[in-house]
């Protein structure tokens, strides 16, 4: 299989002594790529080219990119049903991602997983997960292995605030703190569990859920990638040096519906609210303005980045559309290793 888009430079600049400027231009490009990726996913759905549904990450890009930029390529992540952003930020190639979303053989999972199950050992991606909270055990276990095998790898466990409803999260946070495991629980609070506001499903406080276990906690504006990156870098460093787990709440917003088919949203949230987030709190624009302020880029330069990203995303889509399906005879392969 030959991929038409090259892999991102590799996720993470944690260890590279890139300049401030390069670092944030790279992050900007990553966020733009994710945004454009999701736009294409929506297109594919609308044009009835994609089987099933998908959950878009648009609006939340600063969380995945801000955090993954603070990780090494050999660090692990676990992801969710809304996982495209995490996977891309950790280094997945858009062409193989699209191929997976279309059920093609060139996809990360040979088409067997689809949107909700992208996984890739090469980028430390232990897998997206379609069970809410389903990967908290896996993330904690990978941290257990990282520690017991004597590596200094760190694991980031991404989950939506809806996963706070799953008891297993509390079980594993207790284990992680008892055993001082290098895992960061990242709660992406995008305000909604499907069609219900999180305040209707979440008593007490979000951070309190981790404080209970004596876990280091922090809360950050999830639209401000520099804030996310800074705080994540600190927690990751802390975990890497053996000081145990952390819990990071990132407040953010999903721009689109719960999934691509969720078009009529007025009964659970207003257009006004959506508009406000998009205009006032867009993570890409916020970083863009800062880059310009700093003199790291001007508007045309950012436009160029966008255009380039668009080109490669479009090429990636084309690659996926043209790619062959797996042979039906593969259906019973890979059940057992």
């Amino acid at each position, binding site marked *: 299989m030959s991929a038409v888009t090259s892999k991102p430079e590799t996720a993470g600049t944690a260890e590279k002594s890139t300049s401030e400027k390069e670092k944030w231009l790279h992050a900007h490009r990553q966020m733009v790529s994710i945004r454009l990726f999701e736009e294409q996913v929506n297109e594919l759905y609308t044009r009835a080219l994609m089987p099933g549904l998908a959950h878009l990450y648009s609006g939340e890009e600063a969380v995945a990119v801000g955090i993954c930029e603070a990780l090494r390529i050999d660090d692990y992540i676990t992801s969710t049903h809304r996982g495209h952003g995490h996977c891309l930020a950790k280094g997945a190639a858009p062409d193989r991602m699209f191929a997976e979303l279309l059920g093609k053989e060139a996809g990360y999972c040979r088409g067997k997983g689809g*949107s909700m199950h992208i996984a890739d050992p090469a980028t430390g991606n232990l897998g997206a997960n379609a069970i809410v909270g389903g990967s908290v055990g896996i993330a904690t276990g990978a941290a257990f292995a990282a520690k017991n095998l004597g590596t200094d790898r760190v694991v980031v466990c991404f989950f939506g605030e809806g996963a706070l409803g799953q008891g297993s999260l509390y079980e594993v946070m207790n284990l992680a703190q008892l055993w001082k495991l290098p895992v960061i629980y990242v709660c992406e609070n995008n305000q909604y569990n499907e069609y*219900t506001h999180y305040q209707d*499903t979440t008593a007490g406080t979000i951070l309190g859920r981790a404080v209970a276990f004596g876990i280091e906690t922090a809360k950050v504006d999830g639209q401000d990638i520099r804030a996310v990156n800074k705080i994540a870098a600190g927690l990751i460093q802390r975990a890497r040096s053996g000081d145990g787990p952390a819990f990071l709440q990132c407040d953010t917003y999903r721009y689109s519906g719960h999934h691509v088919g969720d078009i009529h949203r007025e009964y659970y949230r207003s257009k006004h609210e959506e508009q406000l987030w998009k205009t006032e709190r867009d993570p890409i624009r916020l970083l863009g303005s800062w880059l310009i302020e700093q003199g790291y880029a001007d508007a045309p330069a950012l436009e160029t980045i966008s255009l380039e990203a668009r080109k490669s995303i479009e090429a990636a889509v084309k690659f996926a559309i043209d790619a062959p*399906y797996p042979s039906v005879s593969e*259906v019973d392969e890979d059940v057992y290793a």
Partner: protein
Amino acid sequence: MPERELTFAQAVREALAEEMRRDSRVCILGEDVAEAGTPFKVLSGLVEEFGAKRVVDTPISEAGFTGVAVGAAMAGMRPVVDIMFGDFITLTMDQMVNQAAKVHYMSGGHWKVPMVMRTTLGATRRSAAQHSQSLHAWFSHVPGLKVILPSTPYDAKGLLKSAIRDENPVVFFEDKMMYKLKGPVPEDDYTIPLGVADVKREGDDITLVATSSMVQVALGAADLLDREGISAEVVDPRTTWPLDEETLIDSAKKTSRVIVLDEGYGRYGVTSELAAVIAEGAFYDLDAPVKRMGAMHVPIPFSPLLEDATVPTEQNVFEVARSMCQ
């Protein structure tokens, strides 16, 4: 007057609405069951009629709210919990099996748990391995539980009403690909007893025992067989527990050939039990081994061609049946 037709989803909703009007102790608990009416829109309109105290949105806590239903049932309510995808029953097994199923027996008959769990089964929705399973065999294995697999709108309404009135924990599996299937549904307050199979089509040459989604597949196959001059009987047990062994065995004795169809995995599953029951009960009348057809033994793949290959189709069933009748 033409018979009124409803979709499967509408029939489920009507059963719930009628029972909620009839009995104020009936309430619904689940994720996005109120305003959203569930992602499948099965419950649309209920919160408007019955209010948010009786149609209760929960956090994403399947174990938690299933446990709440057990306790609420013991203490005098008749809760119906909604588990969005049947794949998530994994999270409720302790509450359903170690608690709900055993409370009546362990207490020497003193406490009762009149609750219903509604959930889904079925593949081919392009939802991949964690949203496509048909895990009803697990609950069918457990004494103390009853398990319902409706295959038509008519059955859905009548069986769900029986489930809600039952004094025991009952699990009701809806094929999510069947929600839009239409069929006649009387407006009456009718119920269908649990444990009574239904002969969905009479025939003489071969029996197709089928559950849930597979009933439609069997009926389609029966049409194809008919064109070849083979008369197939389609028997729907409707409940895996209690199981109407007699109707299954009688049909097998009559036709001497049987295929058993269920969308769950065959191994250690529903087709095993049905096949074993028939092979034993109709032993001296069978002309051929009972043939089992179920989901292929793989996690359900996402890629459409692969996914489609995992589920028996009319054509597959037709071919197997035809070759058995030769």
